[in-house]
């Protein structure tokens, strides 16, 4: 932890190292007398690592089980609404914590942090209205991923704006290297909605009238964001509306794409020697985020992943859950294999080359994804309607007004708007 501490973002990440170092070594059952720990979360390498470590606290009256699935958002709220809740902790991210907050199923952690949180860094704590509601263990963001060999062939530097990306894509196509050089998780629904939010933030757009739940995306910035997305899709595999992150990774590993805005947490898989020929994985490089339309705000969003503790469980189970999850996100999980899985917010983390994308994104003044109670409704409305514009069924203004209307109807039903 010497040279890499230079970067400002890393200072933020590891800023509170001095606070740590109080607690003793690991003991059987992690020092929990008894209790039940049940984890629900998404399924990708970093989360699997956290859950695996939390499982080591099982034994002597402590039970730990985990359910990691891509469908976690569909089951975490129902699984925490019962009393006692089935899941004692949900691993969530910037957006999905709002669903748990809205339904009031997670508890403030301040007293647990005071009692058992001596190993947590202060910047790991996610506070909402002054109360600690979650503990983050990794940072994530989408940023540029590129094929060095392809860019060298056409003699172009890694793009820093979406306009440069389009120019590079045109050149790659013109030279006959690839027909569809751009990749991207543009699957209709959640992924596509996020790409719009990214692009709209890059245009300096505001999603809502400040301080209200009134949506305001039907403007020039919204149209510009949609037009840029459409321009990009001209260089994507025509099936782009069915490509989620997994399919986008597969296209990359097959050597079909050369440039994309993609998740930092998934670049480790792209650079390892599994599933791709050497010319692909050796030449897969990451860079900072892209800007658009001459703006200075990167066209991407910052994300954290972290854990929460359910409200409807006994204090004993809550304490056991807190201790087990703290163990799961402690320095004990860091080794050569796990280090590249994510940008860990854990003491002792040394960023690998593939993690530089996320770190640069943090440095570049990127906005975090909004944590607002009604953001989930807008995200759904975006995901349901943008495809109509990209497939050419309607113009940008109609799509934006459809999105606003769909959101407004849903927000009225939910009681966010009158």
């Amino acid at each position: 932890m010497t040279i890499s501490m230079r970067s400002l973002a890393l200072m933020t990440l590891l800023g509170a190292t001095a606070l740590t170092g109080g607690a003793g070594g690991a003991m059987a059952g992690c020092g929990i007398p008894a209790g039940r720990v049940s984890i629900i979360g998404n399924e990708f390498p970093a989360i699997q690592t956290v859950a695996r470590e939390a499982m080591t606290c099982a034994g002597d009256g402590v039970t730990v089980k985990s359910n990691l699935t891509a469908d976690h958002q569909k089951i975490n709220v129902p699984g925490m609404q019962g009393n006692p809740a089935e899941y004692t902790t949900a691993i969530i991210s910037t957006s999905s914590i709002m669903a748990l907050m809205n339904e009031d199923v997670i508890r403030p952690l301040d007293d647990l942090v005071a009692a058992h949180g001596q190993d947590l860094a202060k910047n790991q704590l996610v506070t909402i209205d002054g109360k600690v509601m979650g503990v983050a263990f990794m940072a994530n963001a989408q940023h540029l991923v590129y094929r060095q060999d392809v860019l060298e062939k056409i003699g172009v530097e890694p793009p820093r704006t979406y306009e440069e990306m389009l120019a590079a894509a045109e050149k790659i196509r013109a030279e006959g290297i690839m027909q569809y050089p751009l990749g991207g998780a543009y699957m209709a629904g959640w992924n596509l909605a996020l790409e719009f939010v990214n692009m709209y933030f890059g245009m300096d757009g505001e999603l809502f009238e400040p301080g209200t739940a009134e949506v305001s995306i039907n403007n020039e910035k919204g149209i510009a964001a949609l037009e840029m997305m459409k321009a990009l899709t001209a260089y994507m595999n025509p099936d782009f509306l069915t490509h989620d992150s997994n399919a986008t990774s597969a296209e990359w590993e097959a050597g079909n794409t050369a440039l994309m805005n993609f998740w930092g947490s998934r670049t480790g898989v792209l650079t390892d020697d599994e599933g791709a020929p050497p010319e692909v994985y050796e030449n897969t490089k990451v860079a900072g985020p892209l800007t658009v339309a001459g703006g200075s705000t990167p066209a991407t969003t910052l994300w954290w992943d972290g854990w929460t503790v359910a409200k409807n469980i006994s204090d004993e189970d809550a304490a056991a859950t807190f201790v087990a999850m703290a163990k799961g996100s402690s320095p004990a999980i860091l080794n050569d294999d796990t280090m590249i899985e994510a940008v860990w917010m854990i003491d002792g983390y040394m960023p690998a080359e593939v993690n530089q994308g996320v770190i640069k994104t943090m440095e570049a003044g990127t906005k975090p994804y909004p944590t607002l109670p009604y953001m989930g409704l807008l995200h759904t409305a975006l995901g349901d309607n943008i495809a109509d514009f990209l497939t050419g069924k309607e113009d940008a203004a109609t799509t934006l007004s459809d999105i606003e209307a769909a959101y407004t109807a849903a927000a009225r039903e939910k009681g966010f708007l009158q």
Partner: protein
Amino acid sequence: MKHRTFLWFFLPSATAMFLFIALPIFSVVTQSVFAPHEQVIREVENCSVFGCTKATQIDQEATQALREAEPMGRYVGAAIYADRNHLALSEIGALWNRSSGPVDFLGQLLNLPFYGALAFTLTYTLLVTPLAIMLGFLIALAVNAVPRFFRGPMIFVSLLPMIVTPLVGALILFWMVDARGILGAVIQMMAGDPNLSVKASTPLMWTMLIVYGIWSTAPFAFVIYYAGLQTVPQDTLESAMIDGASRWERIRFVVIPHLLPLTTFMALIKIMDNFRVFEPIVSFSASAHAQSLSYFIYSDLGGETRLLSSAAATSVLTILGVVVLLSPVLVRTWRSFGKGAA
């Protein structure tokens, strides 16, 4: 049957029907006319590793008080049915006044989510139901005509689409029609267009969903018809042969009339099933091109913020849709029973 005996005979199934059919429908209808309380929002400061931002949050204590005062939520009557994400009544009124002609009006109408989904759902139901029944009938005739020795294996093979889990069957086809998949490449070759992609074109996507629907449901018709074919009176068939009826004439005038009640039964079941088309849209990732009412329910319940009332309203509309579609068949059945009793 004596009334008392009849009552005891009927009671268990009546109880089951009440518990598992009437009560859930009652519950769904209730949920669709109540919406969550108006949310009490207050401004807060949220902090994470990325710094602090001003944001808003639901005031849980105030919401709790509202909830205790009115545990059912806010009564909204038919407001959710009428809103833009369902029947869109006021939007249709505005469209009618604004549109330049019937074609323009129809185009704009189909842009409203409910009517767009209804268009696909109805197309799917009206094509898949008869085509699957016909295909099943043809397979049954073919299997019935082969020597007994081959029938076992042929029946097994014909049933495979039904045995394969729908999601898996759809996924396999989904990968095959990928622009880089075997069927996708064949389609590109036949059309002579290397950029053609089934997944990127709405008409092709609809076609694929309908083909998949026929493929996966034809075995059901086949099984029923094959069983039915075993009951066709041999004497009638033989006398028809003696009269010099060709194979087609025997099928047209003996087999088909004999199997008509089965066809009515299958049409009932299949219209109900097809109107609730759902799995293929999910497994083909087809939501960009085709949506159905069931897909809306899924999407309402699966988003980060659940829309229970909206999902309930769509459920009730689905039930009504099924009732409307089934009414001709039901009326027909009712009449034929009336005739039988007379």
